[in-house]
């Protein structure tokens, strides 16, 4: 598979554990990622909040660069990046807009490259292939699959799963031998890019999500978004302090979980670089390969 990789700023920045996890996990599955050359930031929340046109142009440049490089598929592990790419892809169905955006971004935009999120990438690899590749079934894992916002919304743009009751991550986890819980906060927002701008908002939302996961019997949360990970993992200590809670709930990227089942170690996947690394209660119940005791 020749897949264009649009890492986005987060994965080249403080979410580089996600980048490490993806490369280790996909490498073990024989999928190689080729970075889209000269990619730029998609503008994120700041662009769509302050300047609509810029919010279209920045991702349009990236889609055009990926198409110039000949990629038929572009994988964007950040749901905001991938949603913005999809928005552009949908907009350029209108030829006038396509030409205008091509001029603005100084690159011919066709809009024919398929845009994939992480869950779709694993779906394309195939449940059967994942099942046969499993070395360490995740028997001790009871996960709360957390989708957050932009993997599912806007539904008419992302056209992925059921935007209120998604099941795609649960299906993948079942193939890896993990259990998943039914819970209430699958698609609620974690506060996303407000981490710095309005920490209070993030702590309130993250607290609700983490608490609900614990109350429904989950022993970890699985995400497919760098910002969800920041808010649920890095901010978890601040949530505990603010709300006087003991959560100690591991937050894994979906690629961590697949990688663990494939027999990769926590160090290989970068799980040892997460903020919350709960100690396993016993070897038997530890998540396979989890470095656990590290703090």
């Amino acid at each position, binding site marked *: 598979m020749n897949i264009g990789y649009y890492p986005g*700023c*987060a994965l*080249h*920045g*403080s*979410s*580089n*554990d996600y980048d490490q996890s993806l490369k280790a996990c996909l490498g073990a599955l024989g999928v190689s990622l080729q970075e889209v050359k*000269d*990619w*730029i*930031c998609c*503008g*994120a*929340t*700041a*662009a*769509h*909040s*302050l*300047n*609509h*046109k*810029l919010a*279209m*142009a*920045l991702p349009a*440049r990236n889609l055009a660069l990926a198409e110039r490089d000949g990629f038929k598929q572009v994988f964007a592990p950040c749901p905001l990046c991938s949603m913005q790419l999809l928005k552009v892809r949908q*907009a350029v169905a209108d030829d*006038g*807009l396509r030409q*205008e*955006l091509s001029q*603005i*971004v*100084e690159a011919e935009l066709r809009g024919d490259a398929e845009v994939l999120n992480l869950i779709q990438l694993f779906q394309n690899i195939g449940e059967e292939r994942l099942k046969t590749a499993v070395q360490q079934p995740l028997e001790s894992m009871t996960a709360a699959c957390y989708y*957050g*916002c932009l993997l*599912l*919304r*806007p*539904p008419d743009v992302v056209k992925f799963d059921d*935007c209120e009751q998604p099941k795609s991550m649960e299906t993948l986890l079942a193939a890896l031998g993990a259990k998943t819980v039914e819970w209430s906060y699958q*698609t*609620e*927002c974690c*506060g*996303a*890019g*407000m981490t*710095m*701008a*309005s*920490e209070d*908002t993030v702590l309130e*939302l993250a607290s609700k999500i983490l608490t609900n996961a614990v109350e429904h019997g989950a022993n970890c949360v699985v995400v497919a978004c760098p910002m969800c990970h920041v808010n649920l993992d*890095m901010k978890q200590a601040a949530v505990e302090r603010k709300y006087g809670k003991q959560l100690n709930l591991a937050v894994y990227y979906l690629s961590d979980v697949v990688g663990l089942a494939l027999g990769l170690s926590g160090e290989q996947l970068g799980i040892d*670089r*997460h*903020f919350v690394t709960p100690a396993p209660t016993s070897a038997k119940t530890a998540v396979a390969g989890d470095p656990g005791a590290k703090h």
Partner: protein
Amino acid sequence: MEPSGAITHSARIESLAGSTIANCYQCGKCTAGCPVASRMDLVPNQLIRLLQLGRDDLALNTASIWACVSCLTCSARCPKQVDCAAVLDALREFSLREGKVSPAARTVVAFQRAFLDNIKRNGRLNELELIARFKLDVLLRTRQLAFLFKDAGLAPQLMSRKKLHLVSERARDLEVVGRIYARCAPSFHPSDCKEGNRREPQPSPAEASVEAVAK
């Protein structure tokens, strides 16, 4: 009161958001699903109601529009296809452009502006530069020294996890990025919009196409 200004806004907001505001029948589903409604001075359906009444001027001044976390739940659940999240995007854009940002929202706005400036300079996000610029900006506005050191304890933790990059990468085609910015925002640069500075709306030549993109 600026009823005449409000009328021109409505059409531009509808066009940018690709929605017909009049379609809203005030069921309140947007507000019911909004994760930050409790933090808003006016909740989403009330903002839409203001637009229905032609009181865009009031909507532009709310802190609500900057409390929004852009989760898109409101838009996804609207039974009348009003893209409420896109309406709030449009309100934010006009609010900043016209210097009508609520003082309660200045921290959020400082962050968004620092972010866009950062991308303009580097093509890709330089996290340390963003944090420095954002903190300095908020310090100058609020004179709260404590904000400068808030989260400073995270730095060594990020460092030990190899998550902090002292030397950040830049995109190679910075000149292209500069030209893209110039084409998208000929009359509007995040850095020269000051909150509280009242500005007349400045429809740019690109306005018509901006609105077309929204559809």
